[in-house]
């Protein structure tokens, strides 16, 4: 086992520092405008474009190649023949235009924070899981758990997707051009899900917050998912957002069904431990 005391963090006192009360440190200026990206990101130029063929490359080699190209300043990268390999284009924390010309396997584009990614084919399970920011557009169908635990950004499949779409969604927008399977929006906490086709059983089951818009039929609603009236702001937002990705609600956005949390499951609080103790 490595000697942790030799780690840089120990030298910096991060394991011995005692925080008392609220920190009053001023970290930034409200008028500071020169920084538009985090200091550790690569400086890339969208006008510098390149491409490579991934046919004979392993996943690790593909991801390393993308990173090397970003280091060299390329802001537009096309990957030919990704070959449905798993975990391609994960962990990209940079502004970047990335085209994946083909299909991806499981966990494609996971943990990304910033890039605009277009996938010309299909994707397997858990595409863009834990996505933080950026856009990921899949031109065809996607597998189950599409956008699992997504935190932010726009994730789009222009086809249909499998079950448990947006499970544990914590932010961002998931858009499905076709249908979605059972348990979509399960344990959703915030963010928006837009499905232009039909939704399977138990839609929004145990959702804590967030909004689901459905353009077609709903097989049934899950526990604590309720229908709420659409507002003009909802309609404006939907119209604008769908137009960005060349999509359209088949019956008009004003006729979509809006699903939110009924908030009957909001029974968490600091009384719970003592209640449990009494019962025990």
């Amino acid at each position, binding site marked *: 086992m490595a000697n942790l005391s030799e780690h840089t963090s120990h030298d910096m006192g991060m394991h011995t520092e005692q925080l008392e009360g609220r920190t009053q440190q001023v970290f930034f*200026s*409200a008028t500071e405008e020169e920084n538009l990206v985090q200091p550790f990101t690569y400086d890339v130029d969208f006008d510098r474009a390149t491409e490579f063929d991934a046919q004979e490359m392993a996943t690790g080699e593909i991801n390393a190649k993308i990173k090397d190209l970003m280091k060299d300043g390329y802001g537009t990268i096309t990957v030919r023949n990704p070959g449905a390999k798993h975990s391609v284009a994960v962990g990209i924390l940079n502004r970047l235009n990335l085209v994946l010309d083909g299909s991806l396997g499981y966990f494609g584009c996971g943990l990304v924070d910033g890039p605009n990614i277009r996938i010309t084919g299909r994707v397997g399970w858990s595409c863009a899981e834990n996505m933080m920011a950026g856009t990921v557009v899949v031109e065809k169908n996607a597998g189950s758990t599409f956008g699992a635990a997504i935190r932010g950004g726009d994730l789009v499949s222009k086809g249909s997707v499998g079950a448990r779409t947006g499970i544990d969604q914590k932010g961002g927008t998931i858009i499905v051009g076709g249908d979605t399977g059972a348990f979509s929006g399960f344990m959703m906490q915030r963010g928006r899900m837009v499905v232009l086709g039909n939704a399977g059983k138990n839609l929004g089951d145990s959702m804590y917050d*967030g909004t689901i818009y459905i353009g077609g039929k709903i097989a049934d609603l899950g526990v604590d998912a309720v229908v709420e009236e659409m507002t003009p702001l909802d309609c404006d937002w939907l119209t604008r957002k769908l137009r960005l990705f060349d999509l359209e609600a088949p019956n008009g956005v004003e006729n979509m069904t809006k699903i939110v949390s009924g908030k009957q499951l909001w029974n968490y609080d600091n009384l719970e431990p003592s209640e449990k103790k009494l019962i025990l």
Partner: protein
Amino acid sequence: MANANDIDHYLTSDGIDSDREKMIGQTIGYRYDVNLVPDYTRVTPYLQKYIDYMGWPDLNWLEDVHMGYEEGRAAVFDRNINGWVTVPEDIDLPDNQQERDMIARELLVKFQMSPNHPLVELRRAYGKFD
């Protein structure tokens, strides 16, 4: 969200309203409407510059950022530090949540992109990759 008609409710009171909240001594749920979608007519010039630079067609992840209220102060939640960043007291708050949200988004971007953000130090201390 409780008292949605009074925008200053959580600035002028402790925000503990219902019988259940009084019993447990804390607010149940968020202190702002997490489902409020942005009004794009109110995007600030700085935010427009930011989204243009990132190559996004709209506010993207910032659509989920709202101005919240913490211990009587306007604040914005930073997911990267898992904590609240209080809004400077010399900033006058507009009388509507949409414009307040735009201020919160602008402040959060400036905070996160600052070389003084705690994540920069944490990355230097714990980062395993370039």
